[in-house]
């Protein structure tokens, strides 16, 4: 998808397009005759933040920025698993079915990287010049899994935090197929959640210390050794509460649903979103890139 071509085509049809797209409603009515898909494909540059919902500290102005942010996170995850599978320190312990599982996850992250690159085309950001340095993450098998849990759970929160920033009918052509970007983001999001659940399941196993207190889901804001910020609040707190949040849509779910439910169950039943600034800060706190 070449956004720049679309913009120039739009400008041929409507030379004043850049001036007239000041907010969403006028953008859609101005562009109605050209077809919404084209309009939204042009949205990244022509409209910029006009389509961006006010969802707190998400400062990603357009779908291109959202996709590049996702691309960075996927590159980080792919690099993390790739380095783990190649780390001499993990050769004796990361074996058998555990190694196969990490290979599966690495394969998914690589597929996500490739898909996002295809969707972005020329707008894809370059890889970090010096790659990713994970420090002592691969020292031991349990340490590796602790980091893996942190990255997967953060990834789930990161995608959730961008759901409102992707126009719902933004459907560019990728690899010859029309794809709805919001749906694709969700299809990646649920895979990351499966990864997170599996990493947590691995941590319950004997090789990782038989930590039966670790559940596949997030109970309260228990971090199980991962950085606390992974489960903490984003900015603003009202939009991005911590994972121990028990209130949804102004309802306190422990006591507001007709019966009493435990805070553990209520908090686990909903995963919370995170803004991109908080996500990036978490990544930079444990990875050099």
């Amino acid at each position, binding site marked *: 998808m070449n956004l720049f071509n679309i913009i120039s085509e739009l400008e041929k049809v409507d030379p004043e397009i850049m001036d007239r797209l000041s907010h969403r409603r006028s953008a859609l009515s101005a562009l109605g005759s050209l077809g919404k898909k084209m309009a939204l494909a042009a949205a990244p540059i022509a409209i910029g933040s006009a389509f961006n919902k006010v969802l707190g500290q998400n400062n990603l102005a357009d779908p291109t920025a959202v996709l590049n942010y996702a691309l960075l996170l996927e590159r980080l995850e792919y690099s993390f698993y790739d380095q783990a599978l190649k780390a001499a320190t993990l050769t004796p312990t990361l074996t058998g079915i555990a190694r196969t599982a990490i290979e599966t996850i690495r394969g998914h992250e690589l597929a996500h990287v490739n898909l996002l690159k295809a969707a972005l085309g020329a707008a894809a950001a370059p890889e970090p010049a010096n790659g990713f340095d994970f420090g002592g993450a691969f020292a031991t098998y349990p340490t590796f899994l602790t980091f893996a849990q942190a990255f997967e759970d953060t990834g789930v929160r990161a995608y959730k935090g961008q759901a409102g920033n992707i126009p719902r009918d933004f459907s560019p052509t990728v690899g010859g197929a029309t794809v709805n970007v919001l*749906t694709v983001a969700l299809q990646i999001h649920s895979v990351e959640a*499966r990864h997170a*659940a599996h990493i947590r399941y691995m941590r319950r196993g004997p090789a990782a210390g038989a930590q039966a207190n670790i559940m596949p889901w997030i109970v309260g804001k228990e971090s199980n050794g991962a950085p606390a910020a992974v489960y903490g609040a984003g900015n603003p707190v009202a939009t991005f509460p911590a994972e121990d949040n028990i209130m949804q849509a102004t309802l306190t779910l422990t006591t507001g649903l007709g019966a009493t439910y435990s805070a553990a169950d209520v908090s*686990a*039943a909903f995963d919370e979103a995170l803004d991109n600034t908080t996500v990036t800060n978490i990544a930079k706190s444990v990875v050099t890139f």
Partner: protein
Amino acid sequence: MPNSFSAFDRPLRRRSFFRVAGAAAAASTLVLSGCGDPGTTTSAPDPVLTLGSADAGLLNYAYVLEQLETTFYKLVLDTPPADLSAEDKDLLTQIYQHEIVHREFLLKALQSAGATPLNTLEFTFTSLTLTTRAGVLAAARMFEDLGVAAYNGAAKLFADATYLLLLGKIVSVEARHAALLHDLLQPGSFADATVVDASGTFAGLERSLTVAEVIAEVNKYLVIKVSAAGLPTS
């Protein structure tokens, strides 16, 4: 107000819903559908329940899915198979609690939206093998996988982003449930090719199903069928 969503403070436009009292429904409240079960020789049309339209209909769609799951888990936990371990039961009980919270929350959301919740459903699980651990976990895995694919497909259909964000908070938990059930049945199958594309343009993406595809699956476990007619498709 923390976590406040304006969508909860205003009624949604909706088509009329039909309130049905279980299987003993009054015929006047039923919509008649022209298609009987394939493979049967019945000539009388089957009664059908409708979900409604627009966002309210989509909330009902999610509500039906959560009712399917809670009803299933309750049945399984009330009469567990002999070979279900204590750890299995503990994990399934936690999942069941999450699903109850989802179900009751969606009920509140429907009520807040001024919609009529479709909660007069009668489920039947006689087609499933629920007398063995493997049978129970396979059925649970199927329902959780279905829920994730359903929410993945429905997200873009909401007019109000509030609901999209709320479903986003639920769907990743369903995916965690699904991954665990895969692992309990077959370690390492948490994201196998049955649910995540292994190759091609969409490699690494989880299944996404249309409302019609999901309802066809759900109807296998409903005494009175649900119709997806009226729900948005794009």
